[in-house]
């Protein structure tokens, strides 16, 4: 029966297809190009924040390793997730075209920090996969250093 004001039967199909499309498209968030230094700086800052979040997660993970409060498989997944987050942030950032020379300098500075961060996380992840908790705990220091650097970088962009 036709309800007045009710959607036509194809509305259900279209609505469902549209909803599905929204979900699928939204799950792949592209990073747009940067046209000005300001927008480039903004992207740099959010990339540093993502890396900082991963590094801090790594520090907490190292703490659980130090006190033998965790299981090796879980620790490995936790660290590998953190590492992936930082790495993918870095590669997305690197793919953005820097608009001018000033941006080039910003890019080099951040890249150095990101590389140190992902290195420390990789070391921790490798040790966790070997169930070497002592080695994971040892990464607390480089991770803390990386966190300080990233924090300073984020503050500087404010």
């Amino acid at each position, binding site marked *: *029966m036709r309800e007045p004001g009710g959607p036509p039967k*194809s509305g*259900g199909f279209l609505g469902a297809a549209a909803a599905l499309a929204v979900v699928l498209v939204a799950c792949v968030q592209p990073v747009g190009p940067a046209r000005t230094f300001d927008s480039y700086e903004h992207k740099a800052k959010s990339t540093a924040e993502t890396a900082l979040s991963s590094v801090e997660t790594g520090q907490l993970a190292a703490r659980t390793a130090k006190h033998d409060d965790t299981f090796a498989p879980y620790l490995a997944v936790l660290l590998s997730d953190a590492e992936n987050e930082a790495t993918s942030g870095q590669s997305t950032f690197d793919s953005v075209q820097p608009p001018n020379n000033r941006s080039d300098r910003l890019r080099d500075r951040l890249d150095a920090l990101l590389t140190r961060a992902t290195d420390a996380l990789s070391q921790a992840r490798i040790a966790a996969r070997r169930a070497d908790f002592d080695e994971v705990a040892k990464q607390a220091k480089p991770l803390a250093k990386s966190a300080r650097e990233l924090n300073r970088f984020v503050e500087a962009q404010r």
Partner: protein
Amino acid sequence: MNRPAPGRRLYAALHLLDRQILDADSMMAGKVDDLEFEQPRDGSEPYVATMLSGLGALGPRLGGRLGRWLSGIHRRLRPEPEPGPARIPFGVVKKLNNHVELTLHREELENNELEAWTRDNLIAHIPGAGHAPE
């Protein structure tokens, strides 16, 4: 006109259409997808003679591409080239309450083809199909 004492009144769309049909064993046996009226020969008012149930009745009611698709499934499942919708005579209704209860078993109904097809071609081949879960 000579009529039996006035019985109860119902609204067809509100109280009959789209209701769940239960068979004699209380197994679910489709919906009342449409009703068919019959015109008595003496020219008096039409009465509800048949319930139509299943994709062959729902398809035309929904209309559009989706309706044709549902009707198409119904056609493929029936042996005859231009099958009508599955019909359940109103005379086999046992009780009308929140459901429409019948005196027949659903295997005896015309709207059981899809159930029979999926059972015979898919479900019956999976081990454990004949036992209730434990």
